[in-house]
């Protein structure tokens, strides 16, 4: 049981014309106040769906089941009025590519002020000064509040987005690809800003990115998603530098340094495409692309197992791979006794 956010057995299914498409398939996440958790994965792994599901922002065609406990209260069971009150106050979102996430015809000051007024965070006569304060907090002069989004650079827009997310002093910030569209230098600045804010205010942050190195630089813990599931979860340093799941190691190898948009769609060295969510392969869903797949992988869909539990009987890392399961020694690639006949096509 975690204090801030506790997601249990989350399933999200999109109703499509050609049948149901599962996007998230049984996801568990936990986050304490003041902690930062990273969620990594390719496009289509379901990580952005998770971000939207946390505040029930998915379109009506998405069916969401499971539990999303935000400070002990189940978001999925909330009435609309309560949900609206929780949005932005309980948790706010820093969206990806701030160009399209800001209303192009509204002044940014008004957009930042909007939740302040809506939720009654400050008295009406203090709204303007609070907006100025927020802008300065993210390193923008207060005078920019009269600008429209297109008058700002990409980095500036992302800062505005962060200022907006901070407006109602939420306990949780969800950063969905917050630095993706930015180039390396700006990315580093924004990451430093986010890290600083978490340290200063003690809020929790859920950071979603395809870029494992960004998460490694920012987060305490990292969860790696593949095809709607978490395949590895643990302290950021360990997951990035000593990945246990073959997919995590491929992802980690794909991002030797911060920000390389070229490798966004398919991590380098990883053949094939992510599975068709409407028709996943049997057994372990990563099997068709896995370099160390064994015959057992075609039948066993491994749950998250503790990694290296034999050291002291407990572990803070878990991975969903038969190679790290009970009775198997060693991490990925150390599975000598299992034949690797079923490799990728």
């Amino acid at each position: 049981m975690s204090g801030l956010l506790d997601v249990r057995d989350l399933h999200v299914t999109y109703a499509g014309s050609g049948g149901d498409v599962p996007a998230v398939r049984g996801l568990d996440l936990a986050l304490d106040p003041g902690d930062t958790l990273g969620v990594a994965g390719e496009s289509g792994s379901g990580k952005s769906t998770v971000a939207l599901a946390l505040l029930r922002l998915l379109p009506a065609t998405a069916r969401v089941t499971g539990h999303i406990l935000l400070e002990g209260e189940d978001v999925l069971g909330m009435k609309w009025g309560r949900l609206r009150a929780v949005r932005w106050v309980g948790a706010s979102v820093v969206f990806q590519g701030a160009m399209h996430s800001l209303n192009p015809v509204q002044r940014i000051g008004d957009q930042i002020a909007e939740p302040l007024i809506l939720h009654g965070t400050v008295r009406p006569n203090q709204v303007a000064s609070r907006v100025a304060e927020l802008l300065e907090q993210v390193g923008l002069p207060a005078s920019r509040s009269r600008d429209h989004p297109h008058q700002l650079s990409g980095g500036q827009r992302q800062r505005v987005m962060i200022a907006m997310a901070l407006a109602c002093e939420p306990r949780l910030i969800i950063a969905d690809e917050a630095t993706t569209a930015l180039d390396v230098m700006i990315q580093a600045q924004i990451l430093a800003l986010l890290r600083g804010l978490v340290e200063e205010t003690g809020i929790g942050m859920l950071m979603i990115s395809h870029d494992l190195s960004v998460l490694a630089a920012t987060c305490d813990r990292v969860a790696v998603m593949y095809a709607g599931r978490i395949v590895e979860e643990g302290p950021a340093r360990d997951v990035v530098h000593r990945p246990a799941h073959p997919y995590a190691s491929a992802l980690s190898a794909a991002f030797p340094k911060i920000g390389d948009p070229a490798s966004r769609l398919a991590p380098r060295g990883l053949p094939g495409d992510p599975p068709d969510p409407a028709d996943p392969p049997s057994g372990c869903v990563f099997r068709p692309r896995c370099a160390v797949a064994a015959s057992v992988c075609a039948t066993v869909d491994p749950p998250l197992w503790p990694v290296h539990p034999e050291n002291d009987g407990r572990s803070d890392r878990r991975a969903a791979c038969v190679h790290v399961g009970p009775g198997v020694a060693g991490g990925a690639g150390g599975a000598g006794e299992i034949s690797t006949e079923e490799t990728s096509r």
Partner: protein
Amino acid sequence: MSAPTGPTDTPTTDDVVRSPRALARARRREALGRFARAYARNRAGMFGLASLLTIGVLALTAPLFIDPAHLTVTGAPGGSLEPPSAEFPLGTDNFGRSVLDLIIWGARVSLTVGLLATFVSVTLGTLAGITAGHFGSSGGLAGRLVSSVIMRVTDWFLVLPTLVLAVALAAVLPRGTGTIILAIGLTVWPPTARLVRAQTLAVEARPFVERARALGGGHAHVMGWHVLPNVMPVVLAQTTLLVATSIIAESTLAFLGMGDPTTISWGGILQAARTSGAISAGIWWYIVPPGLAIAVVALSFTLCGRAFESVMNPRLRGGSG
């Protein structure tokens, strides 16, 4: 040869023997079938189609059950402005002619003018649109100039009040059905030109046009063989919508007295009703039916056009698609 195999079947000797042209024809036939099935699912579109077929058959077969002599002012069978009765289901006009017969007969002129005016404007619009689109994307300096001049002219026509232009044309040219067709055809083409130009630009960006050009295809070849067939579906939907516009325009011109007074058209009937004082006298059976006829036909064409559009471009269909 055995029964024709669908393109989805695995290649057989039959397929090898068949010429590419036959294959293309089979593929086209299948696409047409798919289109028809998708169209049949559109209820509004089917309603429009059914009502158009009914009206079309009535208009074509009118001489079989209506004696044209009864439609002349002198040979009218009834008394002046008789209310609806068993003999005259929609009453009579001020000359004693059956309003129902007038309307069925009027469909002939209204539909003819609507279709021919549409043909004129669609031809004009398609020519202008393809030329502007083609030379705008791949012409030299002169081509680009031609393209931008065409678009300027199109925009100019687009902005001008259509009715004023059509009325002015009809006023200065000799009276007659041909003038009406020309007046409408020459004024309602700009939207088609814009649409076709946009579609042409989209088609020309596709690889097969690039290939045709690389193989030495001239402007006429590219426009006629590659662009035109791919623009046709859009043009077809637009045509259906334009017929509605043209039929309303025809009735409007006739109502303003621009039509040929000797022919019977729906707008002409309404104009006669107005000048005979039927409006302030409240003779509803003289006024309601012709307008309803125009509205039903225009609506039917519109519904068909929208159904075409939505079948070809599902995004327009709305709903959570």
